[in-house]
């Protein structure tokens, strides 16, 4: 633990810390452009200059200098200030003065730091500024490369975090240009994070270009629902529209990244919206009033023949309100696994990501069964890459996909789980922190029991470590399972029970043909498959338009806040279910959102506490359990997995250009 003195204040810093980190610990703010906590150190912007003794009598770049015992660091001397001013002046030689039309304006590092270190005027009045051609980085990233200050954060992000060689630098010195190789679009699922990383306006968001200024946006803390990771996001809204979604820092969940889908599906919130009540009359949906809809549902006299299916995006409150309504009617026909999966949920620990996302980084042998992690949870894939960088071995059972780290594919048949090749079982026997990640495709093939047997066999649970992980794909899944949205036989049980009324809480992946003759009431926010199949449509709120509780695949309880109001006649889901209870003549026991949450917390106490829920111990596996069948991944198109994304023009464009771009090019030829 070296002891250093920062501006006369003596502090102890962890071994291996840099001078910049030491200054941060001492509470000194060091200006920087290229340095970023989560990326490797480049030391090329020179903005973080400080004076260090002992050492050469000149300013030193603090980000790349290790803190050593007895160092005397000054951050406030005239030499430091002049040096930084000099660096800023160099940076501004070629940086255009287009802040008024730059999308980064107001949230630009260069703008902010030039307030402290910029000169009042330029000494390069007669020289032209360097101009750099724009680069094509795909439909999400807009480039104005003249603004680039060569910090190379984007290059390092692509190489280190994303694990793809998509962005690099050409030429040298002043002529250096950041570009995608051969001008191809950046296709990685985390590509848009370089927009946040860019300290200037060189890489900005294309869909958000010239849409708004940061200071006119209302910031709301929310949770991403595009996958089961539950990334912490901030929704920036203006008036009634969500303008953009940005990641929040949460080291346990998303660090500070966000998948492109979570970031850019928000424009889908303004398209294909359900904003009126519709009732099917003689085979055709017609506009109606809330009163007529409730009367029509009551006229079906469901009694206890009522069922509910939860969609992938709903919050726990909605599911609990529906459960309370069904409970009051005397029914327990609840299901959330829309595609018909029927894995055993008697033990919640057996269907959760027990290692936690931060924990999986420390695993040293990982078996992925039936999960296209890159598409099902792009942020988990970044964690896996970190694990591999720390020396973990990764094996995958399932069809091949492009991993961003070295991985061995063991075949497409889930039966491999029972008879692993010798080198794989050796790797797991020798591993201290072995882990298995079970995807939805594996669960569909009944791999849960064999995976538990695998966990027993290789000691996946030992002191302080639980390597048994199930990676879900739906934001509502864990919450739904905690609230009892599961039948022993899956959705087939619901169909077999022949309910009179089926409440579909935004369920768009269900095969509704199994429910012919049932009064299907769709309570959701987007006109998708569910709305087309429905007999009565009640417009509800999307994740941005209601407060809600979400549980991610780790079993982490997180709360999201309401950013904007739902459009038109749409109401928050729980109010619809509460009104429906009146129409059906039953009492659900809550009249306000606070009542509802109170009742939910009383019923499932784990939901009342933010953070990881205690899901209990992993059950013993059955050593004889077997599963076989060829794994097919459920996600066919990363960008179009939920009704909001399918409605989003940006996501449709991404799907067309990034995933099917080659087909398009072929068709054009």
């Amino acid at each position, binding site marked *: 633990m070296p002891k250093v003195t920062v501006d006369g204040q003596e502090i102890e810093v962890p071994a291996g810390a840099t001078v910049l980190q030491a200054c941060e610990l001492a509470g000194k703010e060091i200006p920087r452009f290229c340095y970023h906590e989560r990326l490797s150190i480049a030391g090329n912007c020179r903005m973080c200059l400080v004076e260090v003794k002992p050492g050469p009598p000149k300013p030193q770049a603090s980000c790349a200098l290790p803190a050593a015992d007895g160092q005397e660091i000054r951050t406030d001397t005239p030499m430091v200030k002049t040096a930084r001013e000099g660096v800023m002046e160099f940076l501004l030689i070629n940086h255009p003065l287009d802040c008024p039309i730059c999308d980064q304006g107001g949230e630009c590092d260069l703008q902010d730091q030039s307030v402290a270190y910029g000169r009042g005027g330029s000494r390069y009045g007669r020289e032209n500024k360097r101009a750099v051609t724009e680069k094509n980085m795909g439909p999400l990233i807009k480039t104005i490369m003249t603004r680039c200050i060569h910090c190379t954060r984007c290059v390092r992000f692509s190489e280190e975090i994303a694990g793809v060689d998509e962005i690099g630098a050409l030429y040298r010195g002043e002529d250096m240009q950041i570009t995608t190789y051969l001008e191809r679009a950046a296709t990685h699922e985390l590509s848009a994070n370089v927009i946040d990383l860019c300290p200037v306006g060189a890489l900005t968001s294309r869909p958000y270009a010239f*849409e*708004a200024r940061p200071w006119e946006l209302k910031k709301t803390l929310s949770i991403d629902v595009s996958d089961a990771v539950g990334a912490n996001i901030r929704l920036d809204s*203006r*008036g*009634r*529209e969500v*303008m953009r979604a940005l990641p929040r820092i949460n080291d346990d969940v998303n660090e500070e990244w966000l998948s492109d889908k979570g970031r850019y599906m928000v424009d889908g*919130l*303004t*398209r*294909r*919206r*359900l*904003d*009126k009540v*519709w009732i099917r009359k003689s085979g*055709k*949906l017609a506009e109606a009033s809330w009163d007529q809809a409730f009367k029509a549902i009551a006229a079906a006299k469901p009694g206890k023949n009522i069922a509910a299916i939860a969609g992938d995006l709903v919050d726990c409150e909605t599911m609990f309100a529906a459960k309370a309504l069904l409970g009051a009617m005397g029914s327990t026909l609840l299901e959330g696994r829309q595609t018909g999966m029927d894995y055993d949920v008697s033990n919640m620990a057996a269907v959760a990501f027990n290692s936690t996302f931060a924990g999986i980084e420390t695993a040293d042998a990982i078996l992925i069964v039936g999960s296209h992690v890159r598409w099902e949870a792009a942020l988990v894939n970044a964690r896996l890459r970190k694990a591999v960088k720390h020396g973990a071995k990764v094996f995958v059972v399932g069809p091949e996909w492009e991993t961003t780290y070295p991985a061995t594919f063991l075949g497409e048949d889930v039966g491999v789980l029972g008879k692993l090749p010798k080198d794989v079982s050796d790797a797991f026997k020798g591993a201290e922190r072995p882990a298995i990640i079970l995807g939805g495709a594996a669960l569909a093939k009944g791999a849960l029991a064999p995976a538990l047997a695998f966990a027993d066999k290789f000691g996946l649970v030992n002191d302080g470590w639980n390597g048994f992980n199930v990676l879900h794909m739906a934001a509502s899944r864990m919450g739904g399972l905690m609230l009892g949205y599961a039948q022993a036989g899956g959705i087939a049980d619901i169909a077999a029970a022949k309910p009179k009324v089926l409440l579909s809480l935004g369920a768009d992946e269900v095969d509704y043909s199994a429910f012919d003759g049932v009064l299907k009431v769709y309570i959701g926010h*987007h*006109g998708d498959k569910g*709305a*087309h199949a429905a007999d009565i449509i009640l417009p509800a709120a999307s994740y941005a338009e209601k407060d809600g509780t979400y549980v991610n695949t780790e079993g982490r309880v997180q709360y999201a806040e309401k950013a904007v109001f739902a*459009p*038109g006649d749409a109401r928050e889901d729980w109010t619809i279910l509460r009104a429906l209870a009146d129409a059906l003549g039953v009492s659900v026991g809550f009249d306000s959102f606070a009542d509802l949450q109170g009742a939910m917390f009383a019923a499932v106490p784990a939901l009342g506490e933010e953070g990881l829920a205690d899901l209990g111990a992993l059950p013993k596996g059955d050593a004889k359990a077997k599963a076989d069948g060829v794994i097919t991944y459920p996600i066919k198109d990363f960008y179009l997995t939920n009704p909001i994304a399918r409605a989003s023009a940006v996501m449709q464009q991404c799907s067309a250009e990034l995933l099917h771009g080659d087909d398009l090019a072929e068709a054009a030829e």
Partner: protein
Amino acid sequence: MSVLGKIFTWWDGATIGTLLNSWRTGEQVGTDAQGNRYFRARKTPAGTNERRWVLYAGANDASRVPPEWHGWLHGHFVDVPESLLPPAKIWEVEYTPNATGTLGAYRPQGALERGGRRAGASGDYESWTPDS
């Protein structure tokens, strides 16, 4: 205009008193394209300006006076416009009174009365219909 209307209203054309006064003390000097009649006093006391006035054909709206007669009414022209001004050119647009408050009033582009659609703004959304 009914007789009762003439007696009890003042906004359409001259009142009975004005008509009487115009007949008694004034003489008509001309009419404009809209049928408004222009009068001047027969006698002008020494040292005062000639009295000039207009009787509207229809609504009493000062904007219905075309510019040439406006000039005459306000004493800019010594004599009636026809005697001073060059004849109207064929490309000259006919004078129109102020249309504010009428159906012909100007509506900016995008006004609903003009059948316009406003430009997109934040908060706009596209609603779903069963046919979409």
